[in-house]
């Protein structure tokens, strides 16, 4: 099968979705701009025109609301926020309105909406251009949250997100844009709510999100060289969360590390840990470990950035620590 990049996979999904269904529209800051959303928007504006591909004013809350209204009236909007940080300006509409709409009206109507938010870390961009806020969205009932880690899932999850009747927050990581992988040419879905085991192993289970999946696979390869076999689960969908998959892996390994490149306190890793303790406590042979960002905003200095973001070595260290603690 052909290999394409993560960014190209997103772009292809958008092209095919718009071609396939005239109800799909894009409201995206920078969608007609050469640098904002990387190459994920290439060709869309020229091909589908300014009525279906809208590069709006800087009005995040307003635009989220417009998308909600368009969805209620039968369109399938994709809103793009070039940085998750900007999406914070649009939280009111997203959390109060999109997330609650189906519920407060007794399930008669849904908001079929995809909100793409991009994590854009490093490069001395500092605290307000680097935030990974998946835990925020995961906290809110009524929102689904997906985080593809590879090109195949990037395309398939976007398609599922659009076809889902609910608001789906689709979080992509700019650090993944150049990663390549095999991607089917046709439109296909990757189910929301299902994780996947990307590498099988018996010693430790590592559950990872987004960019950390790549980091953990690198770590797993290093560990394999010294005879340690870790199982790497790409959880893909944070909400709903496939905790059955995680628990069944722990039944085998007895040990769990969760890797999420966002803050530790109240984070995704905390939620996964809590569920495992609730559902598979007896299978645990060691304390759960978390590999996350420290509880500090992103520094802007390059050297500090290096310490701030976990690497394959951080994960290797965590695995060794866990194994020696459980001996």
């Amino acid at each position, binding site marked *: 099968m052909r290999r394409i990049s993560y960014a190209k996979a997103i772009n292809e999904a958008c092209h095919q979705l718009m071609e396939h269904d005239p109800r799909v529209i894009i409201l995206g800051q*920078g969608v*007609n*701009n*050469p*640098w*904002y959303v990387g190459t994920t928007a290439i060709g869309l504006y020229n091909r589908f025109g300014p009525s279906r591909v809208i*590069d709006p*004013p*800087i*009005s*995040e*809350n*307003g635009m989220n609301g417009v998308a909600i209204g368009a969805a209620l009236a039968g369109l399938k909007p994709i809103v793009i926020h070039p940085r998750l*940080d*900007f999406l*914070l*300006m649009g939280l009111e509409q997203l959390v109060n309105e999109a997330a609650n709409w189906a519920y407060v009206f007794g399930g008669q109507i849904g908001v079929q909406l995809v909100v793409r938010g991009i994590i854009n870390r490093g*490069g*001395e*961009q*500092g*605290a*307000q*251009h680097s935030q990974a806020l998946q835990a925020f969205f995961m906290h809110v009932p009524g929102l689904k949250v997906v985080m593809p880690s590879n090109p195949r899932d990037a395309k398939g999850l976007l398609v599922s997100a659009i076809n889902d009747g609910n608001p789906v927050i689709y979080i992509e990581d700019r650090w993944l844009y150049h990663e390549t992988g095999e991607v089917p040419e046709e439109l296909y879905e990757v189910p929301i709510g299902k994780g996947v085991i990307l590498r099988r192993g018996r010693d430790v289970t590592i559950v990872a999100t987004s960019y950390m999946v790549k980091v953990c696979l690198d770590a797993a390869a290093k560990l394999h060289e010294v005879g340690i076999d870790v199982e790497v689960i790409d959880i893909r969908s944070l909400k709903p969360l496939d905790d059955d998959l995680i628990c069944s892996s722990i039944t085998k390994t007895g040990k769990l590390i969760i890797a999420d490149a966002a803050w530790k306190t109240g984070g995704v890793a905390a939620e996964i840990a809590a569920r495992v303790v609730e559902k598979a406590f007896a299978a645990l042979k060691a304390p759960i470990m978390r590999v996350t960002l*420290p*509880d*500090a*905003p992103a*520094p*802007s*200095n*390059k*050297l*500090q950035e290096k*310490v*701030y973001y976990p690497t394959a070595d951080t994960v290797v260290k965590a695995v060794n620590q866990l194994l020696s603690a459980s001996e």
Partner: protein
Amino acid sequence: MKTTWPNEAKYDIDAALIIEMYRSMLRIREFEEKVAELLEMGEIRCPTHLYIGQEGVAVGVCSALRKDDYVFGNHRSHGHYLAKGGDMAKLMAELYCKATGCSKGRGGSMHIIAPEVGVLGTVPMVASTIPIAVGSALASVLKGIDRISVTFFGDGATEEGLFHESLNFASLKKLPVVFICENNFYSSHLPLHERRSLDSIYMFGLPYGIPSKRIDGNDVLAVYFAMREAVKHARKGEGPTLLECRTYRWRGHVGPKWDLDVGIRDKAELDYWMSRCPIKTLERRIVNDGLLSYEDCTNIKREVKQEVEKCVDFARQSPEPSEDDLLKHVFIDRRDS
């Protein structure tokens, strides 16, 4: 030295202040030209939005302020910081993200601060400091001091709800705040006409009962005189003013390039605005009216260049923030009871 501006009797202004404004604009220009060079060299790496071309606004506005007045900025604020009297060396060091920077290397170009001269912070989130400036103006009123607040923002920021919410509240409470919109006609890649059906930003103040004016932002004196009025109004307790200063950024949205390659704007437009350089324009007037000779101007330029070079040396030689300090400053260690 209290002279009036020679050719225009209606402008009563100190000649020394005019020369100060000229120097202040040059400091911003030379600083930024150097930054552009350092960006090209990769020595400065943080996202940097250059202010070149807009110097008339920062300097015109800040020249009408007292040192203790508050200023808030945005992603393009080197000019605001320098015009308000912020330390140039600390700014350069911040662009290098060094420990000696004005934000201790935590902020980079988009988060700069100089509390000692009233610059209480700049942030890249568009429109975010507009209500914050209104809040600092509220504090002045509650504390019974006649300090005023200024917020600088772009034309793009007027698209955010925060802008409108802030205008309403400031007017309602008659707060001493001056809203400075630097209309450079672009919001990153989008020209004004692709974002607004009318070119009418200054009118936004009117329905809220706020005196509002459109000014040529490349005429530093025009900005200064309008600002002086706004300041007088605010200090008397008569409330906010909105000034739309029309200007242009010469460089691209971010970084040292020009954004001509990407088809966002054309060369003729850029050339037109470069021919209306705020610094050259003032320089011509100063020389024509005999305040300074061209030689004086050249000397000032040389001094300013030397100052900038010194700041680069300082920044280069400054230490990086320590890795052990990564978690420092998340909270500050102070109790105020």
